[in-house]
């Protein structure tokens, strides 16, 4: 016990005291009484203290809920000053960026992998060593491979209690600056949307690979493109957008998963990789890239060390002005994504007067249809969006000059066509070609022959 003169005694800062009276109750020497005057700054009646009987027991400090209402006054301050000087560890200067580097990969033969595996390998190559997930068909194999490989790479695999927990684990891990991901499928993705909205609001990166299956409800586990609408227009509440990538082969499952991590950290925003159930299961040849990523810890992260102590991951903006400003800022980010990240594959588009538009596995059928139509003398082409959001409208509009018919081929109820129409409308394309479609859902994919037939029927009718 320090000497009496060295023990801190309470001094009330009246405007910071809310007058709750806990100190009155706590003090064994009855030093405190309730005041009589309203404090003009706080509008509250603060307590009063008379230190004549105070023996510096300190119980009042433990009873006062306000951090700064009771000042610690020490009669013999000098004696304790030296001791106190060491206590406060000062936050260091601005957090340095621990840089992300690329390392050359030893040459290796191509792998033969199924789509979900290829995506998992892409994540590992992108420097993801933290996986959180909940098993759901047809995406589970990706998670299983991560569970197998991560421990030997000193990574972490956590099977969460639900998709809701999953997305929040990604929020924590991504907020700490680490590349984190999950595999999921449609119903699971629905459950993650709230968390994705938080991630976007708080600017937390993370990658969601959604191997879409048939809906609504439990639907089935067969391939569908059921979540284009969710990924492009419905990422939880509020003003949200995220880049949505649509691979169509195991190779692209790897490449686009790697790209997803890069874009996710570039924009501090989640990225969605949308595959269909077929793409998750299909096995094919996959070449490895020349380099892999060794991620650093970004400046903004809440990593839990001195360099990052000042940081905050938070989506709360209480004042109307602050929240509007934040949304304006997010809109600028979305515009940058729209300007810089549109991607598409074009196949025989240059002279096409019939343009097929398709993504994921249906794009493979559409490509077959283009070949078949070309053999029959029809100038058909395929425009395959690789980014579903932002829709690659800037790459599409220059191709439209000679196009008389667009056929949107999709394994959904028109979700891709809606994106196309919205993009055309926003791009002020007024002179629209006829837009037809071949749609299936429930696990049935559009087939090459019916696409060909659709095109030929129109030409018969048009002539």
């Amino acid at each position: 016990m320090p000497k009496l003169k060295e023990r801190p005694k309470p001094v009330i800062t009246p405007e910071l005291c809310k007058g709750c009276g806990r100190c009155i109750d706590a003090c064994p020497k009855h030093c405190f009484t309730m005041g009589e005057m309203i404090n003009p700054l706080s509008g509250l009646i603060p307590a009063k203290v008379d230190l004549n009987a105070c023996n510096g027991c300190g119980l009042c400090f433990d009873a006062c809920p306000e951090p700064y209402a009771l000042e610690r006054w020490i009669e013999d301050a000098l004696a304790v000053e030296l001791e106190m000087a060491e206590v406060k560890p000062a936050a260091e200067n601005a957090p340095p960026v621990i840089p992300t580097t690329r390392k050359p990969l030893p040459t290796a033969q191509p792998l033969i992998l199924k789509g979900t595996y290829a995506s998992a390998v892409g994540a590992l190559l992108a420097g993801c060593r933290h996986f959180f997930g909940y098993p759901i068909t047809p995406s589970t194999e990706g998670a299983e491979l991560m569970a197998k490989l991560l421990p030997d790479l000193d990574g972490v695999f956590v099977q969460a209690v639900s998709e809701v927990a999953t997305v929040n684990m990604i929020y924590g891990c991504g907020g700490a600056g680490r590349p984190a991901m999950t595999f999921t499928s449609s119903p699971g993705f629905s459950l993650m949307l709230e968390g994705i909205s938080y991630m976007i609001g708080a600017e937390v990166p993370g990658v969601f690979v959604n191997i879409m299956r048939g809906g609504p409800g439990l639907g089935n586990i067969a391939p569908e493109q059921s979540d284009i609408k969710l990924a492009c227009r419905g990422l939880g509440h509020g003003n949200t957008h995220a880049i949505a990538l649509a691979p169509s082969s195991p190779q692209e499952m790897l490449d686009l998963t790697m790209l997803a991590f890069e874009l996710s950290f570039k924009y501090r925003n989640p990225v969605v990789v949308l595959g269909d159930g077929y793409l998750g299961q299909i096995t094919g040849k996959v070449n490895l890239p020349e380099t892999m990523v060794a991620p650093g810890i970004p400046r903004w992260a809440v990593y839990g060390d001195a360099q990052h102590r000042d940081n905050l991951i938070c989506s709360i903006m209480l004042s109307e002005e602050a929240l509007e400003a934040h949304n304006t800022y997010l809109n600028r980010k979305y515009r940058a994504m729209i300007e810089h990240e549109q991607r598409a594959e074009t196949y025989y588009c240059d002279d096409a007067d019939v343009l097929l538009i398709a993504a994921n596995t249906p794009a493979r059928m559409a490509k077959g249809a283009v070949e078949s139509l070309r053999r029959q003398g029809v100038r058909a082409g395929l425009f395959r969006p690789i980014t579903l959001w932002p829709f690659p409208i800037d790459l599409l509009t220059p191709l439209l000059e000679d196009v008389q018919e667009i056929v949107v081929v999709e394994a959904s109820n028109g979700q891709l066509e809606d994106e196309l129409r919205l993009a055309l409308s926003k791009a002020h394309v007024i002179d629209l070609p006829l837009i037809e479609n071949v749609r299936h859902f429930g696990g049935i994919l559009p087939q090459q022959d019916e696409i060909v037939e659709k095109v030929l029927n129109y030409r018969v009718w048009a002539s």
Partner: protein
Amino acid sequence: MSVYYEKFTRHARGEGIKGATTHYCPGCGHGLAHNYLAETIEALDIQDRTVLISPVGCSVFMYYYMDVGNTQAAHGRAPAVAIGHKVANPDAVVICYQGDGDLASIGLAEIIQTAQLGLPITVIFVNNGTYAMTGGQLAPTTPMGMATATSPDGRDRLMGEPLKVAEMIAQMDGPIYVERVALFDNKQRNRAKKAIRKAIRLQTEKRGFAFVEVLSECPTHLRMSSDEAQEWIKEKMLPIFPLGVKKDLVVEPWFDMDLPNFDPQALVDQLGTAEEELPRFSDHFPAHIDTDDISVKMAGAGGDGAQTAAMLLTRAAINESFDATHIPSYGPQSRGGTSYADVHIARTEVLSPAAPDPHILIAFNSPSLMKFAPAVRPGGIVIYDSSVITEVPELDSNVQCFGVPMTEIARSLGNIMVKNIVALGALQSVTELFPPGTFLTAIRSALSEKCALIPLNEAAFEKGRQFLEALTH
């Protein structure tokens, strides 16, 4: 206290007295719990590595005050967010601070999983018996009979009994330390301080998950003065929520996680990639079957080996530098149902990976043959297991059909598992898709970690070939 920001700039930009006061009502227990937490962080010298998770509820703005790394979580999810932080940086001291609506209602799943996982994470659970932030509604911890905004006539049986969270957490295997404390007098406050200190110290010592439930006064929604509220806790809450240590295990420090490994060689080793190319045997695309794209369907019961055979064929074709894909039928991942696989082999690029009308069908059982054989293209080939299939459906006269006693041959070799390899031998012989070496290389490569099985599989392949050759020559 240095763990508090000198000025609360996040609280209304720190203007006026808000820069030095909390947003809590007079007499609120949160302020005390905050103080004890701040003192602990200072005393344990962990300010730089502390990550504090603010919840949703009255303590949602905790990040206004604490000069540590801060993350604000969605309602109830703080423990999941905490797991993310802890595994991202095992050296971080991760503290979850949650109220009773947050933790004991919407976030039950997350707290249960995190507690049971047992990682060294500290949860401070502030139980004031009400949803204070939203205006005093019924909480999972509201005492029976108490009137709230959503139980105006008092909590009754239809609203369930109050939830004893500390006891619930204590009976799980994951946590090592669980205590319930209160704030209503000097003695309790002293215990609360010590409990919080201990719960965080156990984390810094890498020992395990610790949980402190704090019975806390909400004078505002109780419509009481703070000393009345203190009395209320004593009289109404204590009988339901008895104070004390609920669990206190002595465990050795165990939590020791390495930082992630980004060594390229380690990754490539994990992927099991071959360093050298496999030998090739074919110098042309098997255009005698189709000029650009050959489709094969393999079908049988689960366990017949259709998927393995399809995968081997795919690997063989890719190794010969063609494009190939394999897509399984996938159902709920249970055994025993039908299992079929579609393979495409293309000169340059496989387009549609499905094979609704294949060039070649291999059927391992009767239902598969009946279902898929009629769809085989004119000019196509059907190979079936004549050991188990006795009846062959009427097929297009242009379709060639070969019965091979795959099961019998495999059994004669001592293992019926290799009937799918017998089938591949037959396939090679009748179609000359690729030379035998292509198949054998794929088989050997797939069995590189089970070398002892290679001779058996080679023999099966050869027997399948021989049977077909004897049949056709």
